[in-house]
């Protein structure tokens, strides 16, 4: 990430060098006895921490106005703090003292203000990013359960959600459905395109299915080429309709030389052990496998 910020880093380096050079230029060195070691330690730590913030920002954030605010706010703060440290080693006389006082006190609050604006912008950005997560995440966040390829959540997350749905909605008599989606003849695609091509198809299908789901639904990758979506407040017939709709939409990414299609199965989530439910779901979708295999072979 830091390659994006080379110009910013140059500016920061120049600023810090200016601070040290000004101090060296205007200052008169103190004698060793005059050093206040506690001050040096305290102010030195502040400088180091501020500089480490700069590195974290540069490492983790892409280019943009929010990054700029955070970075230059941090820079100004570091500038002031480093002058503060130099203060411990030099003292100034006459007009130099006024200039140095100005340099020490004005950039720090400006930097703080910039940082504050930056953090406010960051919050706003996060809110918008959460909206992007719709359809992928419900009430729980755990990055360990993410499938690294499609960035959907894995089967373990699905179980947690299903468990919660059972507790929450079923008790109130609301229906909830599980929609299973399985790509037909995925191994044939893999064979034809290689593993990289297969992964691409998985990713594309995940995006496509996700775009067709409603904002309350959550899509998880179950295993291999099988996806499962939890549809709260949905009856089985509605879920089937949605499944058929997604099946039709799959034609958009299907090519004549590589017919892509999915088979779906919808199940109602009832008060039953989860392993039973998932077993039933897998059976339901495997059941339609044989028919589709025959169809595929005719193509």
């Amino acid at each position, binding site marked *: 990430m830091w390659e994006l910020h080379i110009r910013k880093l140059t500016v920061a380096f120049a600023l810090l060098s200016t601070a040290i050079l000004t101090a060296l230029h205007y200052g008169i060195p103190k004698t060793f006895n005059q050093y206040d070691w506690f001050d040096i330690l305290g102010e030195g730590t502040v400088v180091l921490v501020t500089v480490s913030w700069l590195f974290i920002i540069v490492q983790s954030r892409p280019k943009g106005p929010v990054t700029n605010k955070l970075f230059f706010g941090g820079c100004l703060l570091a500038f002031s703090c480093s002058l503060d440290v130099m203060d411990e080693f030099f003292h100034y006389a006459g007009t130099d003292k006024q200039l140095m006082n100005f340099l020490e006190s004005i950039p720090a609050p400006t930097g703080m203000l910039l940082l504050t604006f930056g953090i406010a912008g960051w919050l706003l950005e996060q809110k918008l990013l959460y909206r992007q997560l719709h359809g992928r995440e419900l009430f729980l966040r755990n990055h360990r359960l993410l499938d*690294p*390829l499609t960035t959907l959540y*894995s*089967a*373990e997350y699905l*179980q947690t959600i299903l468990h919660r749905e059972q507790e929450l909605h079923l008790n109130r008599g609301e229906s909830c459905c599980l929609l299973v989606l399985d790509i037909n003849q995925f*191994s044939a695609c*893999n*064979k034809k395109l*290689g*593993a*990289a091509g*297969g*992964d691409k198809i998985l990713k594309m299908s995940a995006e496509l299915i996700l775009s067709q789901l409603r904002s309350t639904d959550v899509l998880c990758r*179950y*295993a*291999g080429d*099988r996806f499962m979506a939890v549809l709260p407040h949905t009856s089985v017939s509605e879920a089937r309709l949605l499944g058929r709709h997604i099946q039709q939409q799959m034609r958009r990414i299907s090519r004549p030389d590589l017919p892509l299609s999915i088979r779906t199965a919808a199940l109602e989530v009832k008060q039953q052990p*989860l*392993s039973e439910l*998932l077993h039933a779901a*897998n059976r339901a979708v495997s059941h339609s496998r044989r028919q589709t295999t025959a169809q595929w072979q005719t193509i």
Partner: protein
Amino acid sequence: MQAFSYQHKCLLLYNSAADLIKLSQRRGAALQRLLTGTGIFPGDFHQPGHRISPKEWLTLAENCQQLVGRDELPMLAADAILYNNKIALSRLLQCCPSLLQALTLLYYFRHQSLPLLSISLYRQQHYLNICLLPAIGLGKQQDFVIALAVSFLLTLIRQYAPEAELQVELSQSPPARPQYYQQHWQQHWQCETRFNCLQNSIMLPLQLLQQPARVQLSADFIQARFICRQQRRLQQRSDGLLAVIRKKQQQLLPENSSAEHIAAMLNISSSTLKRQLHQHNYSFSQLLDEVKNHKAIKLLRQYKLTNAQLAQRLGYSDEHNFRRAFKRWTGLLPSACKKLLKT
């Protein structure tokens, strides 16, 4: 006869590791972190014949599992290797005229794939039992390597016989969270998988191995086989240390082979042999025990033999000693095991 150990550069980087790395990269793992501690450098990928040592491969496998997660990785890696058209062996396996020929060629060119496991075959009623044993000490990665190999074989078999009824036995214990993992395995393997078994094996119905009538070989097949043969000629073909010693021990049964005898056969001193085995976390007697265990199960499955006959064939002085040894290997008496195998 030469045997390879951890440090020998005997694995083709492109054939065995490149797909694993690419797969992990597509799942968001950084190349640098994948290669940490392996001794492989990004530049090595551009050298077509570059070889790596088993040790480097095992470190790489560990890194991949840490960064990507271990649930699905062996299955995905197996598919990726088999479907990689740039590997001559994979291309050859894709276009064989029959399953029997594919398996034979895989065995013949095994040094071009991942020879970390040795294979032993035996017939059991209407099944062929393909049994996998570690060819060198695989340590923590044993489960991963076995799952990778089983996946590879299953996918290969399914290509020639999509509806085949297969069975898999694994010696590893079932995964800690059975519901998630088993579904992963079932989804990919689509066959009955049993854990905690006496050996790692795939049971293949013999009828699948029928040789078809003579068919015209495709041009692809001939070309791929030509490249594989060329590679084979360029390659130093050696098996893993454990595999080599096991083979010798097996040949000498029912005589109980001594470390000195085997070391002499391999042209090394017996202390070198013991030291090398120690590196693999094995001792000579442990290996001999394993060979006998394997043979006992094989005999039990194949024939109806009495304990006395079994004891004689395995080099035990009497029935009693054999029964005790068998109990130590499997936790069961031979009679109980026979019953179990019948069901």
